[in-house]
């Protein structure tokens, strides 16, 4: 038996191709939306994995350091390091900010870390690790920095000595790793005018400037110009130790909040990007409905344009199944063309997106099944119209 749908598609291939391309662009947008969501989840996962930590210790009652502000004194890590099951600790400071380089500005997440401890870059793709105590940086390549380039961060210039990859914040901002002290200065220190004002106010306070207590004023002023705060202490647990047990001990004895990897993953995926994922979910639903409406309209129009031929087919003995099958196959054919085009363009434009777009084969398969289901559903209206065509329409009068 002749495949009527295939012949019709081949006969009007230009019309089908253009329609398929149009539908494909819409499907490409839909797949990209799914890819953006996957990218956000992947960014969160990479953020957790890339830190090299098993536990995140943050200020009590907060969801820090990524989802909420958290502030700890930087000597907390020493008391944690002595707990059973703790192999290594590392202070980290996080700050999302603008960094200037070559006359342009980039949105980055500044990470202050301690060399050789949890929180440092997981690996390098170019250059070398930070080796000096100040003003050297390792940046994620997505920041657009080059090795050897000088980047201005607040008051100081930093030399980019190395590049890493896929180290981004939960919002997708590339990370720039600098020594902890530098990050603390950037994050917590006041500007020069504020410092001068603060010093003057302190000096004017008779309690800090008492006769017979030399050095008190200088000590107070020095403390105002230093920061001992970090956002989190990252903990690597000893081999064989249960991270949950270690976290429970920290929560109980240190009056701090401790999160395991699973809990941090929950915070990032279920809380931090929950609104975004619902937003994207809404977009996906709307795009699916729009795609269904477009396919239904196209297939319906194609069918209505063939009323006379359908009448002739019915008159000469074609069954409803033959005619319905032809329309269904055309809808599915349009869906296949649209999906192939959509998957192709989604792959083509994914790297151009400022944030990571992760196109998973599983999502593509689910997308394909959804497209086929939508096309089948969309063809129902056209099939109903075709089955209502009276074969008598082929005969005049």
């Amino acid at each position, binding site marked *: 038996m*002749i495949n*009527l749908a295939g012949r019709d598609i081949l006969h009007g291939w230009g019309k089908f191709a253009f329609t398929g391309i149009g539908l494909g662009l819409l499907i490409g947008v839909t797949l990209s939306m799914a890819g953006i969501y996957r990218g956000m989840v992947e960014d969160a996962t990479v953020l957790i994995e890339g830190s090299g930590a098993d536990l995140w210790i943050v200020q009590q009652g907060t969801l820090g350091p990524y989802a909420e502000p958290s502030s700890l004194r930087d000597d907390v890590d020493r008391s944690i390091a002595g707990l059973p099951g703790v192999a290594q600790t590392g202070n980290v400071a996080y700050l999302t900010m603008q960094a200037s380089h070559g006359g342009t500005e980039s949105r980055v997440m500044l990470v202050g870390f301690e060399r050789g401890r949890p929180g440092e870059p997981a690996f390098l793709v170019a250059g070398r690790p930070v080796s000096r105590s100040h003003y050297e940086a390792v940046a994620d390549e997505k920041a657009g920095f080059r090795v050897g380039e000088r980047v201005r961060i607040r008051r100081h210039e930093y030399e980019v000595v190395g590049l890493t990859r896929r180290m981004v914040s939960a919002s997708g901002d590339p990370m720039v790793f600098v020594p902890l002290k530098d990050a603390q200065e950037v994050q917590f220190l006041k500007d020069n005018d504020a410092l001068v004002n603060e010093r003057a106010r302190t000096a004017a306070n008779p309690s800090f400037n008492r006769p017979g207590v030399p050095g008190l004023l200088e000590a107070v002023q020095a403390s105002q110009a230093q920061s001992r705060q970090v956002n989190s202490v990252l903990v690597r647990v000893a081999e064989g130790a249960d991270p949950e047990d270690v976290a429970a001990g920290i929560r109980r004895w240190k009056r701090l909040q401790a999160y395991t990897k699973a809990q941090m993953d929950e915070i990032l995926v279920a809380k931090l990007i929950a609104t975004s994922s619902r937003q994207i979910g809404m977009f996906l639903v709307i795009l699916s409905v729009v795609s269904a409406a477009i396919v239904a309209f196209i297939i319906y129009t194609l069918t209505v344009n063939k009323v*006379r031929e359908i009448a*002739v087919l019915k008159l*000469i003995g*074609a069954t409803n199944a033959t005619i319905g099958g032809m329309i269904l196959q055309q809808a599915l054919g349009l869906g296949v063309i649209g999906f192939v085009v959509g998957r192709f363009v989604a792959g083509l434009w994914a790297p151009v997106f400022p944030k990571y777009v992760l196109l998973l084969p599983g999502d593509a398969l689910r997308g394909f099944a959804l497209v086929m289901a939508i096309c089948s559903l969309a063809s129902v209206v056209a099939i109903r119209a075709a089955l209502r065509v009276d074969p008598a329409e082929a005969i*005049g*009068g």
Partner: protein
Amino acid sequence: MATADHPAIRIQGLRKRYGTGETAVDALKGVDMTVGHGEVVGLIGPSGSGKSTLLKCLGAVIEPTGGRMEIAGEAVYDEGWRIDDLRALRRDRIGFIFQAPYLISFLDVTDNVALLPMLAGVGNAQARSRARELLAALDVAHRASAQVSQLSGGEQQRVAIARALANRPPVILADEPTAPLDSVRALTVVRILNDMAVQFQAAIIVVTHDEKIIPTFRRIYHIRDGRTHEEAGEGRAP
């Protein structure tokens, strides 16, 4: 019992009423008609006389209100359809030729003709072989692979005739088959219909207004006010 001893089509007292009650219209009030195998008859009448209604009843696309209709001796309608599958009846025992060829635009010439046997369950190769034979008989074999849009009007009408003959039906209904054609082409079509009727032993009923071809029929049925009147035609060679 369908045999060659019976006429290809016999109609007795065929009636068709549209609507009910006071608004009812009797389009056919008792039509009688008999056409033998290999015969071509004309069916003529003014607009609104019931030609199209009769054609639709004969083509099993609308149901008559009463009467009897036999095809090759088998009653297909006798105060009700006697055949369950009207689609198969149309496919296997009635051929249709329309005013315009109404070929399937997305199929080539051969497949337009082969589609009917294929719909009847004939294998692809055999159906195409049969299509090519018919196209050769109608002198359009050279356009077998062409798309419909590449054919002239006359060629399209020949392909439409080939399609009507594809399942070797005993009855062919032709609805104004020469209307869009000039005199020469119209007479050519009539000659082809005559030849095909003889060659395939089909009864061909030609509904027409075309004065050019009316003199070619040996028998003519006039239809007026829902009733047919038979008269002898001139039977001129087309």
